[in-house]
């Protein structure tokens, strides 16, 4: 279980998270929604320890992430799909996927790592033909799939998806959403996704949390997002320009 308790984070005096409190249960698919700049990515980065919160606690299975003695082992529990896939330009596709399996505590023989990478690529619908290509030779959708294959390469317990469908056409976005849902289910992993794409929310989420002004504005099952009374959530779900959420015109 992931627990965030009253987490605060500011950048250059500007408060991004203002006492964020949230939980993701084991095996649950939690989707965090919210407008741009509301702190969704910062939340994920705080959980991973990429950014240190100014105040509050973040616990993973009851252990404070800042007190994790073996950082390597702690991070080995996580997989992450970045918004732009964040593939390493200098490495071929299969080495990107097998990155964690080629070094560190999860290191395997090269052939075994390559075999796992090819298996994960097949799982996300990519053939072995692209294994030796470099990321720059792939389309955006293929890069996302490779990023997804890398995120699940070491069978993590917790997977983060940062804007998984941004920049993709609706059909490819649907494919990625379905893949995420299938993979999370079959792995039994805890998934936390941040997005402002409502089709992703409906496809991926068990539970939805809306982040606004650095705090959780609404949280509940995905089945309730259309009937919820919260005006902020209603405006976000409907995509209306008028409502309590300020918009710049």
């Amino acid at each position, binding site marked *: 279980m992931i627990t965030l308790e009253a987490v605060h984070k500011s950048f250059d005096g500007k408060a991004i998270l203002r006492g964020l409190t949230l939980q993701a249960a084991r095996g649950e698919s939690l989707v965090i929604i919210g407008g741009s700049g509301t702190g969704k990515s910062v939340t994920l980065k705080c959980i991973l320890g*990429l950014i240190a919160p100014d105040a509050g606690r973040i616990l993973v299975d009851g252990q404070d992430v800042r007190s994790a003695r073996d*950082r*390597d082992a702690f*991070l080995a529990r996580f*997989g992450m799909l970045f918004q*732009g896939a*964040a593939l390493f330009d200098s490495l071929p596709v299969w080495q990107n996927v097998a990155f964690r399996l080629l*070094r*560190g*505590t999860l290191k395997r023989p090269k052939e075994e790592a390559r075999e796992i990478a090819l298996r994960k690529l097949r799982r996300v619908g990519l053939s072995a033909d692209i294994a030796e290509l470099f990321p720059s030779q792939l389309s955006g959708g293929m890069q996302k799939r490779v990023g997804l294959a890398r995120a699940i390469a070491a069978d993590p317990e917790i997977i983060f998806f940062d804007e998984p469908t941004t920049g993709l056409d609706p059909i490819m976005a649907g494919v990625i959403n379905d893949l995420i849902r299938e993979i999370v289910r079959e792995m039994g992993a805890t998934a936390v996704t941040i997005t402002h794409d409502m089709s992703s929310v409906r496809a991926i989420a068990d539970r939805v949390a809306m982040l606004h002004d650095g705090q959780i504005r609404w949280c509940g099952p995905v089945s309730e997002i259309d009937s919820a009374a919260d005006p902020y959530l209603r405006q976000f779900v409907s995509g209306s320009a008028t409502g309590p959420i300020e918009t710049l015109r």
Partner: protein
Amino acid sequence: MSRRLAMRALARLGRATGRAVAALGRVTLFSARALSHIVRPPFYPREIASALLNIGYLSLPVVGLTAFFTGAALALQIYAGGARFSAQAVVPQIVAIGMVRELGPVLVGLMVAARVTASLAAEIATMKVTEQIDALVTLSTHPMKYLSAPRVLAGLLTVPVLVAVGDIIGIFGGWLVATRALGFNPATYLANTIAFLQTADIVSSLVKGAAFGLIATVMGCYFGMHSGRGAQGVGAATKGSVVAAAVLILAANFLLTQAFFAA
């Protein structure tokens, strides 16, 4: 009024000095961390080999051409200048001492700063902007160890070799011009060069090479790791890294020359 202006100027100077000292402290800490990661496992042999190739071997053409033309021009200058007081015969000795003690290390350092520092800063800054650095961390890989340590190690090891090669090619450039255009005897020119050079000259050249290699690679990695967002951030990091590396190389050259040769 004038007192207030003076106080304001003094305050500005104080703030600028404070910022410069803080930046120097951050760079020093960054260098210490990069050096400590060189000697602590895990090691990444593939990354080290790639950095050795990129920073060392692939810099040879630009270093060779720069040194050749500098040595050749130096021979012409020494000959023309020496003619004013009938001292044309010192061309081999001055070219040798000029190349080995000063021009070889400084020009190689500056060329490495232009070629390698800029490339490192742009590469690492782009990795930062595209979240590849964050991805490294989530894949349990320390960016300092994976990105900075191999490149700094390669700078420390290969730039002294580049300086040695640059010294030899520069002397060869001077030899070629002196023997083809200025009427020097080839064998005598070489004999005078070898006889004149001392061990301290060569050692100082190599030490300067190592120091400049360290500066060039640390600046590239530092500015890359601390770049701002977007294309503007990458551009600023690249420009800042080259300017800082060039200035620090010239300052370090003065300090090392003073340490080696001041009476």
